[in-house]
């Protein structure tokens, strides 16, 4: 009898333990962040887990782009996948149209203390589809112009303030590139010309600088937008044709050309800021560097931009419990509040209390180029747009060859236009 009593007590004690353990909510997290982004996110996640003993984030990093988004879509459809994930706002309409994303209702936002007032209006709106909130913005990221101060100074293209001068306008920009190019081993600028993402970002920047729009209503490159697109692509093709920008350069190679001093300027995402900063800090760069908003090559300032955001997958038949949802929204809010550290990866935080803080305004070179956010052009809000979308494919298939001098820009634009228009029907 006594033995039985002991057993019963032990069982009860164990049960109590399990219940206690269950009070700790686990949040399964998927992201696509690698490189400098990945390192910084990992330390944010570690910090979160340390500060929040009642929530345990189990994070997995998957491959950026098509692999990530295909996996998210298929796993959500069968009720699997994470509780929360990173998501590009550019792809939100596509994600919502495939039923991958769960709406975050106004009540849920309010209960979690997430408010539209803390985000830029355009940024917040980009996280909605048909008025429904599907994501919470985390940052704004864009492409910028990295430059070698020593080389620009030698060419007389550096102002006393340490910023480049005389780069605005196509004629000036081309003249500068020509001046900075002395041979195949000393070129004006390096760009990952063999990378479809970069091709799209530079193209969309130049389209935006002419006030062009990629999609209007349900028409792709309607009216004179096609001419503007051709003009943008022709400008890019001219850079490679003249030898100012090396052709067919892979992503890492284009960075290496800049960091080794072979290219005086470099266009790439803000996420490469840590690469330059780390090299400069360890004294391996060998020159003074800076980064600014892309010069106004055509009519008006504009730069392609996208946002990382947090979204919740719509797991069919395996929806988040209210407790889990609460934990997820807590994580999202915490991440936004701690996004000053995320800015060290080059990004501009989406959370206004952070970007308005004195700490952020002192952060260089972010503070110099963060002005780009005001004139940023986001990818068209369409189910064919965004990372790993048909538009990115078209950039790879049609624009990238033209950028590298294979085929006429006008042909590339009309082929891409036809194909994408066909997908909108």
């Amino acid at each position, binding site marked *: 009898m006594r033995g039985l009593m002991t057993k019963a007590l032990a069982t009860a004690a164990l049960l109590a333990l399990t219940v206690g353990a269950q009070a700790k909510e686990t949040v399964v997290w998927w992201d696509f962040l690698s490189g400098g982004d990945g390192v910084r996110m990992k330390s944010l996640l570690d910090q979160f887990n340390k500060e929040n003993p009642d929530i345990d984030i189990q994070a997995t990093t998957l491959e950026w782009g*098509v692999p990530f988004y*295909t996996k998210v*879509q*298929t796993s959500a*459809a*069968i009720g699997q996948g994470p509780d929360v994930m990173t998501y590009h706002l550019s792809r939100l309409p596509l994600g919502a*149209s*495939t*039923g991958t994303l769960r709406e975050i209702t106004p009540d849920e936002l309010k209960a979690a203390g997430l408010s539209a007032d803390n985000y830029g209006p355009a940024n917040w709106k980009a996280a909605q589809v048909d008025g429904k909130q599907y994501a919470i913005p985390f940052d704004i990221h864009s492409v910028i112009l990295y430059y070698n101060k020593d080389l620009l100074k030698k060419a007389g293209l550096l102002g006393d303030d340490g910023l480049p001068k005389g780069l605005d306008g196509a004629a000036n920009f081309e003249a500068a590139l020509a001046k900075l190019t002395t041979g195949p081993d000393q070129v004006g600028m390096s760009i990952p010309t*063999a990378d479809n993402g970069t091709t799209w970002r530079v193209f969309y920047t130049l389209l935006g600088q002419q006030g062009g729009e990629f999609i209007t209503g349900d028409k792709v490159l309607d009216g004179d937008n096609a001419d503007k697109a051709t003009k943008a692509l022709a400008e890019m093709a001219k850079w490679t044709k003249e030898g100012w920008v090396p*052709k*067919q350069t*892979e992503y890492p*190679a284009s960075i290496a050309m800049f960091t080794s001093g072979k290219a005086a300027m470099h266009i790439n995402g803000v996420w490469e800021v840590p690469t330059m900063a780390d090299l400069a800090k360890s004294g391996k760069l060998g020159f003074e560097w800076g980064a600014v908003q892309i010069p106004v090559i055509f009519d008006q300032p504009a730069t392609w931009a996208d946002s990382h955001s947090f979204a919740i997958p719509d797991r069919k038949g395996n929806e988040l419990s209210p407790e889990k949802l609460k934990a997820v929204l807590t994580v999202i809010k915490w991440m936004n509040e701690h996004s000053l550290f995320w800015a060290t990866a080059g990004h501009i935080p989406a959370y206004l209390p952070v970007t308005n803080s004195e700490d952020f305004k002192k952060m260089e070179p972010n503070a110099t180029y963060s002005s780009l956010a005001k004139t940023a052009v986001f990818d068209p809000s369409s189910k064919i747009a965004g990372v*790993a*979308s*048909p538009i990115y*494919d078209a950039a*790879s*298939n*049609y624009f*990238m*060859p033209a950028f*590298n001098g*294979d*085929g006429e820009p006008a042909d*590339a634009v009309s*082929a891409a236009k036809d*194909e994408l228009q*066909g*997908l909108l029907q």
Partner: protein
Amino acid sequence: MKFGRREIIAAYVLVAPFVISYLVLFIYPTIKMVELSFTNAPLIGAGDWVGLANYVKLSKDNLFIQAALHTGYFVLLTVIPTTLIGLAIAMMVSRLNGWLQSLVLAAFFLPYILPVTVVYLIWTWMLDLQFGIAQYAIELFHGSRVAVFRDRYWAMPTVAFVTIWWTNGFNVLLFIAGLRNISQDIYDAAALDGASRWQMFRNITWPLVWPVTALVLTIQLILQLKIFDQIYLFTQGGPFNSTYVMVQFIYKNAFQLNRGGYAATVAVALFAVIVVVSVLQYQVLRVRGGKS
């Protein structure tokens, strides 16, 4: 011979696991795929019955026609060359003896056991524009370096070349088996009659190894019509759609454009093409082989 009831039951029990798994894993999905091709279903979930609309759309889809042509081009570039190369290598290897033969055979077979991703890594490095060792060869013949996977004229032949390099070992193996089946006596008799080496090949080796050749050609045809992995890794269908093939078209429609029904339609079309072409080819080859 008559079977008892017990024996019949035993036979059913023994055959059942295969039949059931075949029905569940192959036949059922195939029927579902055909069914899906008559609907407008997304990638996952049900859709509405649309009759033949997908097939009508397919017949007018310019991109599909391009994909079909490119697949044909790829088949042309791979099937017959890889068969002939396989035969040539097998004949050379079969002249060797002992451990040397095993060693050479292993060397030719080695690429075949590599996963496609490893093949991809090896050849992107070999053909890298700046650092690739194969670029010296291209420079020698072409005069300048070529970003082979980003050039619309080079892309498909290069993928075909890598595919042959990768898969040829298996053909070599089949041909070796075929060559070993030819009795040495026939060659000895021919040699006594003063037959030249070419005559021996033309009149003994070629006709007697023909069944294997027909088999290799058919296997290759089916395999290469389904080309996808290499294209997906090397070129993603570009540049300018020059390597856009049928399975890529299916993949894109299903997984990127979320058009399950339409993707199934293309899959059915590809299925039909493979069945028709391979049956036709095998019959033609058999008849031809029988005559010669």
